[in-house]
């Protein structure tokens, strides 16, 4: 299969089941809501080293938020059910509680699984905290030097999918970056999808384990490193001098497949030789996103 001259490899992206929470952060202005959202989702590219994966999902107008103020929705994802509450408590506590004017609300109100966040953070109030039940939901008012921090007591948790991906094999680093930027632009701001890496793009795709150090759980994906073409079992076609990857996580497989389709389509441009994807032979992750099926319009 070729799209505008770009070869689509007959392979698939292998993804995993993760646990997801959606947080709605609001502020007096969009600027302050963004400040909190950016800090909240900082250092959250990969569970390999960050314990969770997170990013801004989209910006919200006042009409879309619980308190009528501008805001941002973010998705935070962990591999285990037990890990998500811990990560939420530490991140909301350090990045939203601390940020001027912000409040923090649950973005998955229909999720039957509920994890306590405000119920833990309230103790920062040192006994001066107070709660309000509004519309059947409890919110905590934590006194802070600025005034009060309002945070919902419980947040919904659902199963999601992490690790959707594709690789852009380019003739040059410039061409790879242009294609990646176009793909990210086409994939951003959607409900249910995040791109957790910087600017949505990964330059350091990894393989499982290490050839030399047993304790390492991941190391450079040498088969796709252009500088190692001559000294490793390369998977790079002739003429490829740079590779960038886009990793996407989401609330379900369909939204990932649809987003991948638009991203790959945007990436198929001058200077790109081929599009491929990362997998582990299909033995580790239950979700397989076959590139050619996706580009043919089929759902995952």
């Amino acid at each position, binding site marked *: 299969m070729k799209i505008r001259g770009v070869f689509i490899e007959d392979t698939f992206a292998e993804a995993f089941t993760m646990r997801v929470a959606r947080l709605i952060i609001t502020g007096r202005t969009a600027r302050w809501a963004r400040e909190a959202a950016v800090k909240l989702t900082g250092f959250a590219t990969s569970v390999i080293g960050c314990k969770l994966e997170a990013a801004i999902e989209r910006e919200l107008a006042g009409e879309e938020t*619980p*308190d*009528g*103020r501008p805001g941002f929705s973010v998705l935070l994802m962990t591999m285990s059910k037990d890990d998500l509450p811990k990560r939420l408590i530490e991140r909301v506590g350090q990045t939203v509680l601390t940020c001027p004017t912000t*409040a923090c609300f649950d973005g998955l109100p229909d999720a039957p699984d509920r994890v306590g966040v405000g119920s833990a953070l309230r103790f920062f109030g040192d006994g001066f905290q*107070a709660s*309000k*039940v*509004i*519309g059947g939901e409890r*919110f905590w*008012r934590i006194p802070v030097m600025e*005034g*009060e921090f*309002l945070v919902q007591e419980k947040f919904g948790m659902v199963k999601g999918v992490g690790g959707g991906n594709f690789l852009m094999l380019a003739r040059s680093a410039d061409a790879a970056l242009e294609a990646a930027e176009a793909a990210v632009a086409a994939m951003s701001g959607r409900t249910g999808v995040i791109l957790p890496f910087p600017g949505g793009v990964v330059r350091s795709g990894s393989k499982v384990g290490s050839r030399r150090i047993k304790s390492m759980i991941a190391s450079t994906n040498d088969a796709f490193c252009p500088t190692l073409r001559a000294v490793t079992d390369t998977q790079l076609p002739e003429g490829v001098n740079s590779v960038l990857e886009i990793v996407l996580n989401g609330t379900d497989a369909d939204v990932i497949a649809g987003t991948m389709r638009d991203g790959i389509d945007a990436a198929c441009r001058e200077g790109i030789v081929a599009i491929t994807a990362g997998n582990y032979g299909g033995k580790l992750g239950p979700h397989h996103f076959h590139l050619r099926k996706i580009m043919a319009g089929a759902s995952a």
Partner: protein
Amino acid sequence: MSVGITARLRAPLPARADMGAILAGSWAQLSPADLAHRPVRLDGDRSVPFGDLFEITGAPAGRITVQGDLGRADRLGAGLSEGAVVVDGNIGDDAGLAMSGGSIDVRGNAGARAGGAESDGRRGMTGGELLVRGNAAAEPGTRMRRGLVVLAGDVAGHAGPGMIAGTVIVVGNAGPAPGRWSKRGSIVALGPIEIPPTYRFACTYQPDHLRLTFLRLRSRYGLMLDERYLTGCYRRYSGDLAELGRGEILAWTAE
């Protein structure tokens, strides 16, 4: 779509009527015929079936609209735990007495102790929402433990006496002596209010939780509060310092 049950007063009430048993406990799935058997006490002694005083029609859908001059009907919604109650006019004393859930929307005025407690009860409301679109007599929200009382008109005075928690919002004139003996809880005044001497000023700020509450009142009850109440500042007073002192009066300020 069904609008639930309608209970229309057949004739003016001959005496004060205690309607406390009508909506106590589970009622939302009861048919008009079942509800008609529930007792109403007249003048404190005589008991007559609800159906003798009201024409009851419709189908159960978790909602009842009560129509007629109910100024002499007391304790309607006492012990309410579920469903939506609309009173299409005035209501007597003790509406929503010790309710624990559901909602009561009074389209007219309310008598004394709306959302209050039994005279010997330690707690008043423990949940639910009571909205009075007109004026309210004294002592709304007495000893409430949780829940929301919204008084869109004026209050005769003594709002939220002995509150343990919960929220009383007064859109009009809150009258004298609000929040006396309250332990916790919030009295929110959008209009004039006399701050008791046992409350102490803390600061002027914007409480985010009020925006949530006001937006809910807008979406759930169509109560359109002016934008200035959503975006404005409130003077916070802590009290009652003659009690636990962890309650508050939040008084909207144009400053």
